Protein backbone atom coordinates (compact mmCIF):
# COMPACT_ATOMS: atom_id res chain seq x y z
CA UNK A 1 0.00 0.00 0.00
CA UNK A 2 1.10 3.61 -0.44
CA UNK A 3 0.27 6.66 1.62
CA UNK A 4 0.68 9.59 -0.74
CA UNK A 5 3.10 10.64 -3.48
CA UNK A 6 5.12 12.78 -1.08
CA UNK A 7 5.46 10.05 1.54
CA UNK A 8 6.56 7.69 -1.21
CA UNK A 9 9.16 10.17 -2.32
CA UNK A 10 10.44 10.38 1.24
CA UNK A 11 10.69 6.58 1.42
CA UNK A 12 12.61 6.52 -1.84
CA UNK A 13 14.90 9.32 -0.73
CA UNK A 14 15.79 7.59 2.54
CA UNK A 15 16.95 4.57 0.62
CA UNK A 16 20.07 6.38 -0.61
CA UNK A 17 21.49 5.64 2.84
CA UNK A 18 23.60 2.50 3.14
CA UNK A 19 21.86 -0.38 4.85
CA UNK A 20 18.42 1.13 4.35
CA UNK A 21 15.96 -1.09 2.50
CA UNK A 22 12.21 -0.54 2.00
CA UNK A 23 11.28 -1.72 5.51
CA UNK A 24 13.83 0.43 7.29
CA UNK A 25 12.94 3.44 5.13
CA UNK A 26 9.33 3.03 6.16
CA UNK A 27 10.24 2.82 9.82
CA UNK A 28 12.39 5.93 9.58
CA UNK A 29 9.72 7.91 7.75
CA UNK A 30 7.02 6.88 10.21
CA UNK A 31 9.25 7.87 13.09
CA UNK A 32 9.95 11.33 11.70
CA UNK A 33 6.36 12.04 10.62
CA UNK A 34 4.58 10.52 13.58
CA UNK A 35 6.82 10.94 16.54
CA UNK A 36 9.59 13.44 15.99
CA UNK A 37 8.83 16.18 13.51
CA UNK A 38 11.15 18.57 15.29
CA UNK A 39 14.03 16.11 15.04
CA UNK A 40 13.17 15.64 11.36
CA UNK A 41 13.30 19.37 10.70
CA UNK A 42 16.62 19.62 12.46
CA UNK A 43 17.93 16.72 10.37
CA UNK A 44 16.76 18.38 7.16
CA UNK A 45 18.42 21.69 8.05
CA UNK A 46 21.73 20.18 9.13
CA UNK A 47 21.82 17.86 6.14
CA UNK A 48 21.27 20.73 3.75
CA UNK A 49 23.88 22.86 5.45
CA UNK A 50 26.46 20.08 5.55
CA UNK A 51 25.96 19.22 1.90
CA UNK A 52 26.29 22.86 0.94
CA UNK A 53 29.40 23.63 2.99
CA UNK A 54 31.45 20.55 3.78
CA UNK A 55 34.28 20.13 1.31
CA UNK A 56 37.89 18.99 1.39
CA UNK A 57 40.59 20.46 3.60
CA UNK A 58 43.00 22.39 1.36
CA UNK A 59 45.97 20.74 2.98
CA UNK A 60 45.03 17.10 3.57
CA UNK A 61 41.70 16.63 1.73
CA UNK A 62 39.92 15.52 4.90
CA UNK A 63 36.26 16.51 5.17
CA UNK A 64 35.68 19.97 6.64
CA UNK A 65 33.64 23.14 6.12
CA UNK A 66 36.73 25.26 6.86
CA UNK A 67 39.71 25.90 4.60
CA UNK A 68 41.78 23.69 6.91
CA UNK A 69 40.60 20.78 9.05
CA UNK A 70 41.20 20.60 12.81
CA UNK A 71 44.19 18.27 12.42
CA UNK A 72 45.93 20.55 9.93
CA UNK A 73 45.12 23.60 12.11
CA UNK A 74 46.56 21.99 15.22
CA UNK A 75 50.05 23.07 16.20
CA UNK A 76 50.46 19.96 18.34
CA UNK A 77 50.78 17.51 15.44
CA UNK A 78 54.11 16.29 14.15
CA UNK A 79 54.87 17.80 10.73
CA UNK A 80 57.55 15.22 10.01
CA UNK A 81 55.10 12.31 9.65
CA UNK A 82 52.41 12.10 6.99
CA UNK A 83 49.95 9.24 6.84
CA UNK A 84 48.28 8.51 3.47
CA UNK A 85 44.82 6.95 3.73
CA UNK A 86 42.13 6.00 1.22
CA UNK A 87 39.14 7.56 2.97
CA UNK A 88 38.08 9.94 5.76
CA UNK A 89 36.70 6.86 7.53
CA UNK A 90 40.19 5.33 7.56
CA UNK A 91 41.59 8.57 8.99
CA UNK A 92 38.98 8.46 11.73
CA UNK A 93 39.80 4.84 12.53
CA UNK A 94 43.49 5.65 12.95
CA UNK A 95 42.68 8.72 15.07
CA UNK A 96 40.43 6.64 17.30
CA UNK A 97 43.08 3.97 17.67
CA UNK A 98 45.40 6.73 18.89
CA UNK A 99 49.17 6.64 18.80
CA UNK A 100 49.75 8.51 15.56
CA UNK A 101 50.61 12.17 16.10
CA UNK A 102 51.54 13.18 12.57
CA UNK A 103 49.39 14.60 9.80
CA UNK A 104 47.31 12.97 7.07
CA UNK A 105 46.60 12.97 3.38
CA UNK A 106 43.25 11.57 2.17
CA UNK A 107 43.11 10.10 -1.35
CA UNK A 108 39.32 9.54 -1.50
CA UNK A 109 39.82 6.27 -3.33
CA UNK A 110 42.55 4.01 -4.66
CA UNK A 111 44.18 3.33 -8.00
CA UNK A 112 42.04 0.97 -10.00
CA UNK A 113 42.98 0.84 -13.65
CA UNK A 114 40.09 -1.52 -14.41
CA UNK A 115 37.65 1.08 -13.09
CA UNK A 116 39.45 3.87 -14.89
CA UNK A 117 40.67 5.49 -11.65
CA UNK A 118 44.16 6.87 -12.15
CA UNK A 119 46.67 8.98 -10.20
CA UNK A 120 44.95 12.19 -11.34
CA UNK A 121 41.80 11.24 -9.45
CA UNK A 122 43.55 10.90 -6.10
CA UNK A 123 45.21 14.29 -5.61
CA UNK A 124 48.67 12.78 -5.90
CA UNK A 125 50.16 15.94 -7.44
CA UNK A 126 49.08 17.83 -4.34
CA UNK A 127 50.70 15.20 -2.15
CA UNK A 128 53.94 15.50 -4.09
CA UNK A 129 53.93 19.30 -3.71
CA UNK A 130 53.60 18.94 0.05
CA UNK A 131 56.48 16.50 0.24
CA UNK A 132 58.49 18.79 -1.99
CA UNK A 133 57.90 21.63 0.51
CA UNK A 134 60.29 19.73 2.75
CA UNK A 135 58.73 19.31 6.23
CA UNK A 136 57.89 15.62 5.83
CA UNK A 137 60.45 13.00 6.84
CA UNK A 138 58.31 9.87 6.90
CA UNK A 139 55.31 8.83 4.84
CA UNK A 140 53.13 6.09 6.27
CA UNK A 141 51.31 4.34 3.43
CA UNK A 142 48.10 3.29 5.16
CA UNK A 143 46.10 2.28 2.10
CA UNK A 144 43.98 -0.86 2.44
CA UNK A 145 45.56 -4.33 2.21
CA UNK A 146 43.72 -5.01 -1.06
CA UNK A 147 45.30 -5.33 -4.49
CA UNK A 148 44.19 -1.78 -5.31
CA UNK A 149 45.47 -0.43 -2.00
CA UNK A 150 48.78 -2.17 -2.64
CA UNK A 151 49.03 -0.73 -6.17
CA UNK A 152 48.28 2.73 -4.78
CA UNK A 153 51.02 2.39 -2.16
CA UNK A 154 53.45 1.29 -4.86
CA UNK A 155 52.60 4.25 -7.07
CA UNK A 156 52.94 6.78 -4.25
CA UNK A 157 56.25 5.22 -3.21
CA UNK A 158 57.58 5.48 -6.76
CA UNK A 159 56.29 9.01 -7.07
CA UNK A 160 58.04 10.17 -3.90
CA UNK A 161 61.24 8.26 -4.44
CA UNK A 162 64.02 10.79 -4.76
CA UNK A 163 62.63 13.25 -2.22
CA UNK A 164 64.61 11.56 0.53
CA UNK A 165 61.56 10.72 2.65
CA UNK A 166 61.32 7.47 4.59
CA UNK A 167 58.43 5.31 3.42
CA UNK A 168 56.64 2.81 5.59
CA UNK A 169 53.65 0.57 5.04
CA UNK A 170 51.22 -0.67 7.69
CA UNK A 171 52.12 -4.22 8.70
CA UNK A 172 49.80 -7.03 7.69
CA UNK A 173 48.87 -9.04 10.63
CA UNK A 174 46.88 -11.56 12.46
CA UNK A 175 44.05 -9.80 14.31
CA UNK A 176 44.59 -9.29 18.05
CA UNK A 177 42.64 -11.81 20.04
CA UNK A 178 42.20 -13.92 16.92
CA UNK A 179 43.05 -17.57 16.56
CA UNK A 180 45.29 -18.66 13.70
CA UNK A 181 42.93 -21.46 12.77
CA UNK A 182 40.27 -18.92 11.78
CA UNK A 183 42.47 -16.43 9.94
CA UNK A 184 42.12 -16.65 6.15
CA UNK A 185 45.04 -18.03 4.21
CA UNK A 186 45.97 -14.80 2.43
CA UNK A 187 46.25 -12.84 5.68
CA UNK A 188 48.20 -15.59 7.32
CA UNK A 189 50.74 -15.99 4.52
CA UNK A 190 51.28 -12.21 4.35
CA UNK A 191 51.70 -12.10 8.11
CA UNK A 192 54.28 -14.85 7.78
CA UNK A 193 56.25 -12.97 5.15
CA UNK A 194 56.14 -9.83 7.29
CA UNK A 195 57.16 -11.59 10.52
CA UNK A 196 59.22 -9.57 13.02
CA UNK A 197 62.23 -10.48 15.15
CA UNK A 198 60.98 -11.61 18.55
CA UNK A 199 62.41 -9.82 21.56
CA UNK A 200 61.29 -9.61 25.15
Amino acid at each position, binding site marked *: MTFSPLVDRLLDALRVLPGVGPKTAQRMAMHLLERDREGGQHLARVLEEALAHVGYCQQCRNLTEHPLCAICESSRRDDSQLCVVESPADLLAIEEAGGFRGRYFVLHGHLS*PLDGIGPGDLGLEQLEQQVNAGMVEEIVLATNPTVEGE*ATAHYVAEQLRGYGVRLSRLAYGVPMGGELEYVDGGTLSRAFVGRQPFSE
Partner: protein
Amino acid sequence: MQPHPAYLLHRRPYRETSALVDVITLEHGRLRAVARGIMRPGSRSRGRLQPFTPLHLTWSGEGELKTLKVMESHGPGAMLAGEGLLCGFYANELMIRCLPVELPVKEVFAVYSSLLEALPLPAMRAPALRRFEVTLLEALDAEPVFVTENDTPLEMHTQYVYRGDMRRFRPALAQEQGIDGRTLKLLARGDWESPGLARVAKQLTRIALQPLLGNQTLRSRELMHELAVRRQKAPS
Protein backbone atom coordinates in the same frame (compact mmCIF):
# COMPACT_ATOMS: atom_id res chain seq x y z
CA MET B 1 27.74 -28.73 -10.31
CA GLN B 2 31.36 -29.57 -9.52
CA PRO B 3 33.50 -26.67 -8.27
CA HIS B 4 35.45 -25.15 -11.18
CA PRO B 5 38.97 -23.76 -11.01
CA ALA B 6 38.81 -20.01 -11.55
CA TYR B 7 40.46 -16.64 -10.90
CA LEU B 8 38.80 -13.37 -10.04
CA LEU B 9 39.69 -10.70 -12.61
CA HIS B 10 37.77 -7.78 -11.21
CA ARG B 11 35.17 -6.95 -8.62
CA ARG B 12 33.03 -3.87 -8.25
CA PRO B 13 30.32 -3.04 -5.71
CA TYR B 14 26.80 -3.93 -6.80
CA ARG B 15 23.62 -2.95 -4.98
CA GLU B 16 24.02 -2.72 -1.27
CA THR B 17 25.99 -5.74 -0.15
CA SER B 18 26.84 -7.56 -3.38
CA ALA B 19 29.57 -7.37 -5.97
CA LEU B 20 29.63 -7.69 -9.72
CA VAL B 21 32.57 -9.86 -10.70
CA ASP B 22 34.49 -10.91 -13.79
CA VAL B 23 36.11 -14.31 -13.46
CA ILE B 24 38.14 -16.52 -15.75
CA THR B 25 37.33 -20.20 -15.41
CA LEU B 26 39.21 -23.23 -16.65
CA GLU B 27 36.36 -24.77 -18.66
CA HIS B 28 33.94 -21.97 -19.41
CA GLY B 29 36.17 -19.01 -20.17
CA ARG B 30 35.32 -15.58 -18.83
CA LEU B 31 32.10 -15.16 -16.88
CA ARG B 32 30.24 -12.23 -15.41
CA ALA B 33 28.49 -12.92 -12.16
CA VAL B 34 26.92 -11.46 -9.06
CA ALA B 35 28.47 -12.43 -5.76
CA ARG B 36 25.61 -11.91 -3.34
CA GLY B 37 26.19 -10.52 0.12
CA ILE B 38 29.97 -10.51 0.00
CA MET B 39 30.20 -6.82 0.92
CA ARG B 40 28.37 -7.46 4.18
CA PRO B 41 30.57 -6.75 7.18
CA GLY B 42 32.18 -9.96 8.32
CA SER B 43 31.52 -11.87 5.09
CA ARG B 44 34.12 -14.64 4.87
CA SER B 45 33.79 -14.90 1.11
CA ARG B 46 35.05 -11.35 0.56
CA GLY B 47 38.48 -12.24 1.87
CA ARG B 48 38.59 -15.29 -0.37
CA LEU B 49 37.32 -13.61 -3.49
CA GLN B 50 40.54 -11.76 -4.32
CA PRO B 51 42.33 -11.38 -7.63
CA PHE B 52 45.40 -13.55 -8.33
CA THR B 53 44.24 -16.29 -5.94
CA PRO B 54 43.24 -19.74 -7.21
CA LEU B 55 39.55 -20.24 -6.54
CA HIS B 56 36.99 -22.98 -6.80
CA LEU B 57 33.61 -21.65 -7.88
CA THR B 58 30.17 -22.88 -8.68
CA TRP B 59 27.44 -20.72 -10.16
CA SER B 60 23.91 -20.81 -11.47
CA GLY B 61 21.98 -18.98 -14.18
CA GLU B 62 21.47 -19.47 -17.89
CA GLY B 63 21.79 -15.86 -19.00
CA GLU B 64 24.94 -13.77 -19.41
CA LEU B 65 24.92 -12.74 -15.76
CA LYS B 66 25.48 -15.70 -13.43
CA THR B 67 25.10 -15.95 -9.69
CA LEU B 68 28.10 -17.28 -7.80
CA LYS B 69 27.17 -20.04 -5.39
CA VAL B 70 30.24 -21.48 -3.78
CA MET B 71 33.43 -19.47 -3.44
CA GLU B 72 36.40 -21.24 -2.00
CA SER B 73 40.05 -20.41 -2.20
CA HIS B 74 42.17 -23.22 -3.53
CA GLY B 75 45.72 -22.69 -2.37
CA PRO B 76 47.64 -19.51 -1.68
CA GLY B 77 47.56 -16.65 -4.17
CA ALA B 78 50.55 -15.13 -5.87
CA MET B 79 52.05 -12.48 -3.60
CA LEU B 80 52.13 -9.68 -6.08
CA ALA B 81 53.48 -6.28 -5.19
CA GLY B 82 54.83 -3.28 -7.02
CA GLU B 83 55.51 -3.69 -10.72
CA GLY B 84 54.46 -7.36 -10.67
CA LEU B 85 51.08 -6.33 -9.32
CA LEU B 86 50.59 -3.78 -12.10
CA CYS B 87 51.46 -6.48 -14.65
CA GLY B 88 48.78 -8.65 -13.02
CA PHE B 89 46.23 -5.85 -13.48
CA TYR B 90 47.35 -5.59 -17.10
CA ALA B 91 46.71 -9.30 -17.73
CA ASN B 92 43.29 -9.03 -16.07
CA GLU B 93 42.35 -5.94 -18.04
CA LEU B 94 43.42 -7.63 -21.29
CA MET B 95 41.17 -10.62 -20.61
CA ILE B 96 38.20 -8.47 -19.63
CA ARG B 97 38.60 -6.35 -22.75
CA CYS B 98 39.39 -9.11 -25.26
CA LEU B 99 37.68 -12.32 -24.23
CA PRO B 100 34.01 -12.69 -25.12
CA VAL B 101 32.03 -14.24 -22.25
CA GLU B 102 31.71 -18.02 -22.16
CA LEU B 103 34.29 -18.69 -24.84
CA PRO B 104 36.23 -21.69 -23.48
CA VAL B 105 39.94 -20.81 -23.40
CA LYS B 106 41.70 -23.58 -21.49
CA GLU B 107 45.19 -22.65 -22.73
CA VAL B 108 44.76 -19.02 -21.71
CA PHE B 109 43.74 -20.15 -18.23
CA ALA B 110 46.79 -22.41 -17.92
CA VAL B 111 49.21 -19.78 -19.18
CA TYR B 112 47.61 -17.16 -16.92
CA SER B 113 48.25 -19.28 -13.87
CA SER B 114 51.91 -19.74 -14.80
CA LEU B 115 52.10 -16.00 -15.48
CA LEU B 116 50.98 -15.35 -11.90
CA GLU B 117 53.79 -17.54 -10.64
CA ALA B 118 56.31 -15.69 -12.79
CA LEU B 119 55.24 -12.13 -11.96
CA PRO B 120 56.93 -11.89 -8.53
CA LEU B 121 60.28 -12.56 -10.27
CA PRO B 122 61.43 -9.47 -12.22
CA ALA B 123 63.52 -11.42 -14.74
CA MET B 124 60.62 -13.76 -15.59
CA ARG B 125 58.04 -11.02 -16.08
CA ALA B 126 58.56 -10.00 -19.69
CA PRO B 127 58.84 -13.52 -21.17
CA ALA B 128 55.80 -14.71 -19.19
CA LEU B 129 53.78 -11.70 -20.33
CA ARG B 130 54.69 -12.33 -23.99
CA ARG B 131 53.69 -15.96 -23.72
CA PHE B 132 50.40 -14.91 -22.15
CA GLU B 133 49.70 -12.32 -24.86
CA VAL B 134 50.50 -14.75 -27.66
CA THR B 135 48.31 -17.46 -26.13
CA LEU B 136 45.47 -14.97 -25.83
CA LEU B 137 45.93 -13.90 -29.46
CA GLU B 138 45.93 -17.54 -30.60
CA ALA B 139 42.77 -18.31 -28.63
CA LEU B 140 41.05 -15.48 -30.47
CA ASP B 141 42.50 -16.32 -33.89
CA ALA B 142 44.32 -13.02 -33.90
CA GLU B 143 47.99 -14.04 -33.74
CA PRO B 144 50.35 -12.79 -36.47
CA VAL B 145 50.75 -15.05 -39.50
CA PHE B 146 54.37 -14.91 -40.60
CA VAL B 147 53.92 -14.38 -44.33
CA THR B 148 53.55 -11.34 -46.58
CA GLU B 149 50.25 -9.70 -47.50
CA ASN B 150 50.21 -11.94 -50.58
CA ASP B 151 50.81 -15.06 -48.48
CA THR B 152 54.35 -15.47 -49.78
CA PRO B 153 57.19 -16.43 -47.39
CA LEU B 154 59.15 -13.69 -45.60
CA GLU B 155 62.67 -12.90 -46.91
CA MET B 156 65.54 -13.07 -44.42
CA HIS B 157 67.03 -9.66 -45.23
CA THR B 158 63.93 -7.59 -45.86
CA GLN B 159 62.50 -5.19 -43.27
CA TYR B 160 58.79 -5.70 -42.58
CA VAL B 161 55.94 -3.85 -40.94
CA TYR B 162 53.00 -5.71 -39.37
CA ARG B 163 49.51 -5.02 -40.68
CA GLY B 164 47.16 -5.76 -37.79
CA ASP B 165 44.07 -5.64 -40.00
CA MET B 166 45.41 -8.44 -42.28
CA ARG B 167 47.51 -10.22 -39.61
CA ARG B 168 50.33 -10.25 -42.16
CA PHE B 169 53.51 -8.35 -42.99
CA ARG B 170 54.33 -5.84 -45.70
CA PRO B 171 57.80 -4.62 -46.69
CA ALA B 172 58.79 -1.45 -44.81
CA LEU B 173 59.02 1.79 -46.77
CA ALA B 174 62.40 3.48 -47.19
CA GLN B 175 62.20 5.71 -44.06
CA GLU B 176 60.13 3.28 -42.02
CA GLN B 177 61.33 1.39 -38.93
CA GLY B 178 60.71 -2.30 -39.63
CA ILE B 179 61.55 -5.74 -38.26
CA ASP B 180 63.89 -7.88 -40.35
CA GLY B 181 62.69 -11.17 -41.80
CA ARG B 182 65.27 -13.19 -39.88
CA THR B 183 63.90 -12.01 -36.52
CA LEU B 184 60.35 -12.67 -37.67
CA LYS B 185 61.27 -16.21 -38.65
CA LEU B 186 62.54 -16.79 -35.10
CA LEU B 187 59.27 -15.51 -33.69
CA ALA B 188 57.40 -17.73 -36.16
CA ARG B 189 59.15 -20.72 -34.57
CA GLY B 190 57.69 -19.68 -31.22
CA ASP B 191 60.74 -17.89 -29.80
CA TRP B 192 58.60 -15.21 -28.16
CA GLU B 193 60.30 -15.56 -24.80
CA SER B 194 63.92 -15.35 -25.92
CA PRO B 195 65.72 -12.41 -24.25
CA GLY B 196 67.34 -11.24 -27.49
CA LEU B 197 63.92 -10.74 -29.08
CA ALA B 198 62.24 -9.14 -26.07
CA ARG B 199 61.85 -5.66 -27.55
CA VAL B 200 60.54 -6.83 -30.92
CA ALA B 201 58.23 -9.38 -29.33
CA LYS B 202 56.73 -6.71 -27.07
CA GLN B 203 56.23 -4.34 -30.01
CA LEU B 204 54.61 -6.97 -32.16
CA THR B 205 52.19 -8.36 -29.57
CA ARG B 206 51.18 -4.80 -28.78
CA ILE B 207 50.28 -4.06 -32.41
CA ALA B 208 48.59 -7.45 -32.75
CA LEU B 209 46.40 -6.82 -29.70
CA GLN B 210 45.32 -3.39 -30.92
CA PRO B 211 42.44 -4.53 -33.19
CA LEU B 212 40.96 -6.47 -30.23
CA LEU B 213 41.06 -3.43 -27.98
CA GLY B 214 39.53 -0.86 -30.29
CA ASN B 215 40.13 2.82 -29.60
CA GLN B 216 40.16 2.69 -25.82
CA THR B 217 43.60 2.51 -24.26
CA LEU B 218 44.50 -0.04 -21.60
CA ARG B 219 44.49 1.84 -18.30
CA SER B 220 46.92 -0.50 -16.58
CA ARG B 221 49.41 -0.09 -19.41
CA GLU B 222 49.08 3.70 -19.10
CA LEU B 223 49.75 3.44 -15.40
CA MET B 224 52.91 1.37 -15.95
CA HIS B 225 54.03 3.82 -18.59
CA GLU B 226 53.50 6.82 -16.27
CA LEU B 227 55.60 5.11 -13.62
CA ALA B 228 58.37 4.32 -16.08
CA VAL B 229 58.47 7.96 -17.21
CA ARG B 230 58.60 9.11 -13.58
CA ARG B 231 61.44 6.76 -12.80
CA GLN B 232 63.48 8.19 -15.65
CA LYS B 233 62.85 11.74 -14.44
CA ALA B 234 63.45 10.95 -10.75
CA PRO B 235 66.33 12.95 -9.24
CA SER B 236 68.26 10.03 -7.75
